[in-house]
């Protein structure tokens, strides 16, 4: 079924605006996606109708909020097909989710001389937390490189994983290269040697149906604001067998069972990892976003996004001097590129004058920049509310701008 995009766009009134005198073309979805009115309305309902702090009170408003929050958790559980809701932890985003694992897993399982594997295509959020933890613990960070096309050198994994490897962290989809990594294969190889795997799903969750049980990943992290949901909310899925053995990350209310100055005991999952007042409004909004996707036949949206990417890639390749970074056969969501002789910042500035929003810069992936020996890139990233017409306009804009240099 081909989705009715003009109908879908009505749910995103933000798209229908004039920027610098031109109709907005929003191609920065990998940075943050827009939120449908359904999400905004759900959030408002809570702010204006039923707001009470969760879990801790006997009164009706607090109970209503708690129920909405916990059913939000159930919505996420279903979306991920997690075995139980207690394995779904609400965080403030992918970054916090990964830091939580790096810290708590590190405290429980990493000692001096142990090894952690990340890949060369990771976002800083999936590098720096591991670096910080390795530095604290005297552990060693090892890196799985990628090829010119932007594919991981999976073949190297067998030798990279040693008896000292404690965890492997890899992106589901690269935010620069767009590569869809072969998770099943990576996880199988890692599990063979009893190494758990964390998936940075920031760019995966918005473009796939996720089934953490089928994947058999140990942790999966993503952000609400990239999945048509609110800012400040994210998710960490973790297998109970790990979470149970990890110490809490943040200390505070709700994550404890009993506090005395002599000894503090911790609450059960998921609360052990949810210290403080959670961003329950965000969690409720995220659940609304996921429900929105469900009401729209996700599978056809995914296919449609893929078609957009194919079309855009084809068009951009017609432009002389344009180089695309990342040409893996399995790819989604983003096209990063440069045009010879034009600074990405200049291109971004001029595209903005034409109402076209793209991301420029180092894309929070310095190692990828270093790999290709560039300082910056331009990145266009797509969502299901984008259209073929927008891609054509983008293509024409690039041709026109190229003529200015």
């Amino acid at each position: 079924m081909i989705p009715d995009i003009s109908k879908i766009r009505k749910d995103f009134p933000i798209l229908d605006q004039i920027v610098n005198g031109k109709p907005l073309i929003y191609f920065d979805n990998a940075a943050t996606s827009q939120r449908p009115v359904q999400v905004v309305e759900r959030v408002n309902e809570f702010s204006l109708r039923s707001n009470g702090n969760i879990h801790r009170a006997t009164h009706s408003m607090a109970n209503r909020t708690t129920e909405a929050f916990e059913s939000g958790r159930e919505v996420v559980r279903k979306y991920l097909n997690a075995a139980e809701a207690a394995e779904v932890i609400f965080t403030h985003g992918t970054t916090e989710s990964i830091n939580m694992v790096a810290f708590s897993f590190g405290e429980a399982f990493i000692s001096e001389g142990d090894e952690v594997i990340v890949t060369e295509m990771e976002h800083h959020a999936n590098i720096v937390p591991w670096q910080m933890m390795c530095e604290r613990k005297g552990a060693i960070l090892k890196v799985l490189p990628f090829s010119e096309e932007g594919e991981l050198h999976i073949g190297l994994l067998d030798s990279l994983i040693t008896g000292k490897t404690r965890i492997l962290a890899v992106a589901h989809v690269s935010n620069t290269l767009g590569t869809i990594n072969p998770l099943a294969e990576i996880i199988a190889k890692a599990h063979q040697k009893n190494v758990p795997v964390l998936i940075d799903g920031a760019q995966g969750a918005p473009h796939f149906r996720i089934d953490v049980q089928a994947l058999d990943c140990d942790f999966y992290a993503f952000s609400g604001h990239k999945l048509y949901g609110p800012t400040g909310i994210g998710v960490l899925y973790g297998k109970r067998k790990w979470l149970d053995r990890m110490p809490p990350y943040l200390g505070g209310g709700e994550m404890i069972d009993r506090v005395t100055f002599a000894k503090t005991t911790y609450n059960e999952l998921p609360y052990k990892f949810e210290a403080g007042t959670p961003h329950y409004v965000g969690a409720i909004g995220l659940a609304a976003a996921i429900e929105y996707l469900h009401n729209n036949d996700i599978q056809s949206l995914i296919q449609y996004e893929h078609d957009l990417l194919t079309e855009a890639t084809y068009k951009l390749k017609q432009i002389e001097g344009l180089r695309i970074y990342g040409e893996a056969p399995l790819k989604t969501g983003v096209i990063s590129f440069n045009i010879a002789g034009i600074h990405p910042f200049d291109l971004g500035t001029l595209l903005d004058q034409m109402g076209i929003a793209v991301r420029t810069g180092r894309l929070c992936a310095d190692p990828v920049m270093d790999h290709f020996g560039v300082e910056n890139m331009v990145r266009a990233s797509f969502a299901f509310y984008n259209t073929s017409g927008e891609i054509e306009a983008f293509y024409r804009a690039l041709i026109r701008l190229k003529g200015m240099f």
Partner: protein
Amino acid sequence: MTIDETQQEIVEDFSGFEDWMDKYAYLIELGNELAPIDPKYKVEANLIRGCQSRVWLHQEFTEGRIIFEAESDALIVKGLVALLLKIYSNHTPKEILASEPRFIDEIGLRQHLSPTRSNGLLAMVKQMKLYALAYDRISANNK
């Protein structure tokens, strides 16, 4: 009386109340009347801890039936506990397993059994069912 008949009776008892105050006053009365459990059973192992009110649940298995005793520190919860005992105690594991405490919904106190309530009541129902399940298995094995 079967579990269901007891539930029906309770629902009828409650249908007489004009407003919530009468209903809660009755629960408080039931709570006050409930015999305390033997202090020796009021131990950590029998404690079902809600965030705010605690329930102690003790059971014994005699002649194919489970006898439950329970208590709570909060009076309204204790009243509800009294009702649950009346319904479930002195029944066979299979009877207990086959029946849901629908009366709570029907007398309009559903919120007390919601998973987000911090009163330990839902956990008590779950615990009773777990006991029933365990005894049911044991009996099957002994056959």
